[in-house]
């Protein structure tokens, strides 16, 4: 799923419900409705702030192997 800072909670909800139905079936996806609502809100909260990260340093990769490098 692409990072779209303008994607609405409802758009997130539809997207993850589609994934939940594929992964767990319609009945279980229905049982997870409350959790899917919450997750859609949280994903929208992350998306909304993602533009702030344009100057944020990226997390570094493994560094332990570099010890002893000349």
């Amino acid at each position, binding site marked *: 799923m692409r*990072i779209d800072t303008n994607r609405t909670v409802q758009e997130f909800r539809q997207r993850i419900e589609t994934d939940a139905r594929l992964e767990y079936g319609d009945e279980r996806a229905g049982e*997870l409705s409350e*959790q899917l609502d919450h997750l859609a809100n*949280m994903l929208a*909260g992350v998306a909304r702030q993602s533009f702030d990260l344009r100057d944020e340093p990226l997390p570094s990769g493994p560094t332990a192997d570099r010890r002893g490098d000349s």
Partner: protein
Amino acid sequence: MNTTAGMTARALVESIHHGEMSVSRVADDHLGRINQVDGQVRAFATVDADLVRAEAQALDTRLRAGARLPLHGVPIGVKDIIDVAGLPTIAGFEPYRGTIARTDAEIIARLRALGALMIGKTHTTQFAVGDPAPTRNPWDQTRSPAGSSAGSGAAVPAGMVPVALGSQTAGSMLRPAAFNGSVGFKPSFGWMPLDGVIPLSWSLDHLGIYTADVSDMALIYRSLKQLPTDRVTSDRPPRIGMLTEYLDMSEPSVAEHVRSVAATLVGAGATVIETAWPVSFDDLFAPHQVLFSGEMAAVHSANLLRYPDEYGVKIRAGVETGSLIPGTYLMQARRLQRRHARLVNNWMRDFDAVVFPTVTTEACPIAETGDRSLQVPATYLGLPAMSLPTGLGPDNLPIATQLIGRSGSEDRLLDVAEWITRQWPLIGRPQL
């Protein structure tokens, strides 16, 4: 005194060091207290009395040989996601019953080297998530002891141990401290080692400590840090930020209580300024929840497929929905965590601590584990946080004030906590 159960860790160590009592006597008294009240509280998942007595005898042998360890003979309850050699780590998950840990977790090994006595394993919600543990709140057995560190949070005020270990990935250390009326302390992210602890979310997992008072907390913290434990703390009145956003999220009686505490501190010379962090609660909470759910799913999804019927309702739903989080959003949440931690740590330079309630309410009914909202910020930001049981609410249950410091400011935060408790005494223990 007929029993040593209920004494502070500091008083126990002093008596043991001076030869006034043996570690074996302390062990027997605490095992006796567990037998007396744990039928009501249900704090302990596993207690091996023979193992405890054997370890107590070994500590007595060292005492006779002249050893005087900083925590000599202090009984400790251990949350049942932390390995203790010779005991099972069940984590509230039946398939793990009977799997005996061969070695101690790193934190247990460090505490044993300081002379502490592991008295048993305390109940946790399953894998430290949201399905309630069997533990009861010692103040009212119809109320929740919170979670996930339910047994550890309840065992200390119930007088079964003077010290217990818990963990926090959202609010699992500080909320049990608040609901049960113990002092809870979660140092900065990474300060307490997680080797030998069942993980939940590697970006958020912390260990923490429960005691009955701040002096005991300083004893444990300073012993672990290998510092002198009899240090006189600072008398400098603290400069405190009171975060009104979090007061406004709380029940009026809880918010009013914390305002009363703050007013008393001002009267004693503290500076208290009503203010706000540079990041809102909503902006912190969203990436916390994405990290928590996504990393929990990574830890548990394979195990859930193997044992689908053994998982609790809440953790199963959490793992299933966490598995739907796109990787890009998980990475953005991690980047936001680093950004927010930097912003808040820079902002905190102007203050010794910030305060707001530990939980929005008194202890909730037993079927739930309570509101995690106000404990999440310190977890997500990796900041040291302490819960002080500063009062009783309308239902005569504990209310707690939360103190949060800059990353790495544990020493000053403990000084501030000790200063506060000199101005505003903590509540006593429940009657059992």
